[in-house]
């Protein structure tokens, strides 16, 4: 049901009956390693390209999520997935193997919550019983796609971010036990004219702020409603810009509830510059770490605000600015 200008409230309680997070070797050394269901010790995953490795990550996350609730692929009605490759090949190729009706989503790194919001809407409207929302990225494939191949040896400024190698999947069902998706706010594309692809956090911060404020307004809530509000991958620079903007606009976001997935996933001594990024950043932290904490009873109400920079290598070369988006999904136990 639509509420306010751009939010949905899910009255039929679509529930995340299972979720899975898969990661690579760098994530295995990170701060949230225990919350991953599967960690690989080699970035190639025994494939002959990084793109194929990324597809395997996504397939594994979906397989684990399905197996956890003792279902089979045939039980899944729809598969919604996004990634950062050209023409979202990771998702399409994984869907080829899964043989489940597929809807590809692209919102750059916000694809994770775009998928979860749509999956919840489909279930909430009685259009499906089981829908998987998933997202994946691979550090090496994304560096190649959006920046420079690592072996090129291009320098990175301190504002750059580190793409997560991993995949996250959530199985949304009409009935069952688990955290419930209660609302979602779909973001507008916001472009403040920033052009530096090595400073995506700063470019995406205004989009996150706009979506968070609209979410509160549409649903008549304030920050104290939530135990945790986490942005997707703003990193240290973007997250502090977002905190400042929100407090200027009168929202008191205390640092113990306002977090960023990109600042949680790795340890302080890992060389990730301003923090983590990628669809898999918000997907693995949410579907692994946060949902585990909800199931343990440590968190009751969370808002995930996945942020995406909607540039392409072509738009950057043609000196276009970076349009950004953020989608917020509210999950309650």
């Amino acid at each position, binding site marked *: 049901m639509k509420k306010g200008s751009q939010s949905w409230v899910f009255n039929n309680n679509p529930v995340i009956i299972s979720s899975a997070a898969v990661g690579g070797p760098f994530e295995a050394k990170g701060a949230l390693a225990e919350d991953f269901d599967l960690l690989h010790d080699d*970035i*190639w995953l025994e494939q002959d390209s990084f793109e194929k490795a990324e597809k395997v990550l996504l397939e594994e996350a979906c397989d684990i999520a399905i197996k956890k609730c003792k279902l089979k692929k045939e039980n899944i009605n729809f598969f919604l997935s996004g990634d950062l490759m050209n023409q979202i090949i990771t998702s399409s190729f994984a869907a080829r193997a899964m043989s489940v009706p597929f809807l590809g989503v692209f919102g750059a790194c916000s694809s994770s919550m775009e998928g979860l919001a749509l999956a919840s809407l489909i279930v909430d409207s009685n259009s499906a019983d089981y829908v998987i929302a998933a997202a994946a990225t691979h*550090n*090496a494939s994304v*560096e190649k796609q959006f920046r*420079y*191949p*690592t*072996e*090129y040896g*291009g*320098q990175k*400024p301190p504002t750059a971010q580190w793409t997560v190698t991993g995949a996250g999947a959530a199985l949304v069902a009409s009935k069952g036990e688990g955290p419930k998706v209660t609302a979602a706010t779909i973001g507008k594309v916001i472009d403040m004219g920033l052009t*530096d692809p090595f400073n995506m956090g700063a470019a995406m911060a205004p989009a996150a702020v706009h979506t968070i404020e609209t979410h509160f307004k549409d649903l008549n809530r304030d920050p104290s409603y939530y135990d945790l509000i986490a942005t997707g991958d703003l990193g240290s620079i973007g997250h502090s810009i977002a905190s400042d903007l929100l407090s200027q606009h009168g929202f008191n976001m205390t640092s113990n509830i306002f977090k960023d997935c990109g600042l949680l996933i790795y340890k302080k001594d890992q060389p990730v510059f301003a923090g983590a990024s990628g669809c898999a950043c918000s997907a693995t932290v949410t579907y692994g770490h946060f949902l585990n904490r909800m199931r343990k009873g440590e968190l009751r109400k969370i808002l995930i605000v996945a942020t995406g920079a909607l540039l392409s290598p072509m738009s950057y070369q043609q000196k276009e600015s970076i349009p950004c988006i953020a989608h917020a999904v509210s999950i309650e136990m």
Partner: protein
Amino acid sequence: MIKVLLAFLVGGGICVIGQIMMDVFKLTPAHTTSTLVVVGAILGGIGLYEPLIKFAGAGASVPISSFGNSLVKGALVEAQRDGLIGVLTGIFDLTSSGITAAIVFGFLAALIFKPRG
């Protein structure tokens, strides 16, 4: 010893210029490299790069700007001998060893190694 110091200062200075082009003027690595090649070619064309190499040795001959100088030098030498067509045949004359080495060693490295990221 003084030659080593001069090489360090001039070579380092060229690298500082490159770093400023990337950090302050936000040029991409490819644009930075190309710009240095063009500057080297212009300096070579007006006869200023050779004196710089005499002055600073490896400090001027190792950075990428020296590649631009070599392109122009090769073109000028063959232009004097063969006329205008010499510009076309001579441009890669002095630099062909460097270009071929880059291709061959790049190929060999790609055969042996697998990227780690």
